[in-house]
């Protein structure tokens, strides 16, 4: 696609429910990244994929968070048993990959509110 697409754009969920956030990267971008931004704060790294492999999962806040990617396409970030502190904007980005000196393209984000 022309840009990085994220869905849903907004999600309100009850505490304890599971949520799935989706990211469609730019076609041909082998690398995909998930970040979290709490209100008024900077971006916090969660996980990145090179292809469908996730070499670094150290940013995932807890075992309630998981992510997967299908080939070099769609990625899903799943949060189980959501807590109020999970409320944030979840941003996805993609890039051409390690061997290319190009910057990241971010999606518009999913605003998650846990009530």
């Amino acid at each position, binding site marked *: 696609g022309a840009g990085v697409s994220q869905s849903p754009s907004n999600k309100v969920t009850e505490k304890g429910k599971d949520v799935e956030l989706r990211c469609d990267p730019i076609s041909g971008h082998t690398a995909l990244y998930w970040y979290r931004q709490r209100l008024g704060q900077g971006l916090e790294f969660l996980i990145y994929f090179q292809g469908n492999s996730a070499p*670094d999962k150290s940013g995932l806040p807890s075992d309630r968070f998981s992510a997967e990617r299908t080939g070099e396409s769609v990625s899903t970030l799943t949060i189980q048993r959501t807590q109020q502190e999970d409320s944030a904007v979840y941003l996805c980005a993609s890039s051409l990959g390690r061997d290319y000196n190009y910057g990241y393209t971010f999606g518009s984000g999913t605003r998650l509110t846990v009530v």
Partner: protein
Amino acid sequence: GIQVEQSPPDLILQEGANSTLRCNFSDSVNNLQWFHQNPWGQLINLFYIPSGTKQNGRLSATTVATERYSLLYISSSQTTDSGVYFCAVDWTDSWGKLQFGAGTQVVVTP
């Protein structure tokens, strides 16, 4: 991990003014990017600049890797330049894990 410090934290400019934003980092980097987050939250990549100088319209950036800093210049500022400017780096053995600074909040007044 690497430390990324941005200054100033806040900047108020009158339309037409020039400004310089600074990013200091604590270790050698493989990747340095500048982003603009507009008031609606959209993050736009401005520059990929681990070293050297680049220009794009009224914006330019310089990274002096040996001295571990980068500068973003905004010339003839416009109200559409308002937002938060982030510097982000990754470093040796941490490819893919961009560390963001806290950002500089810029407000351009008419």
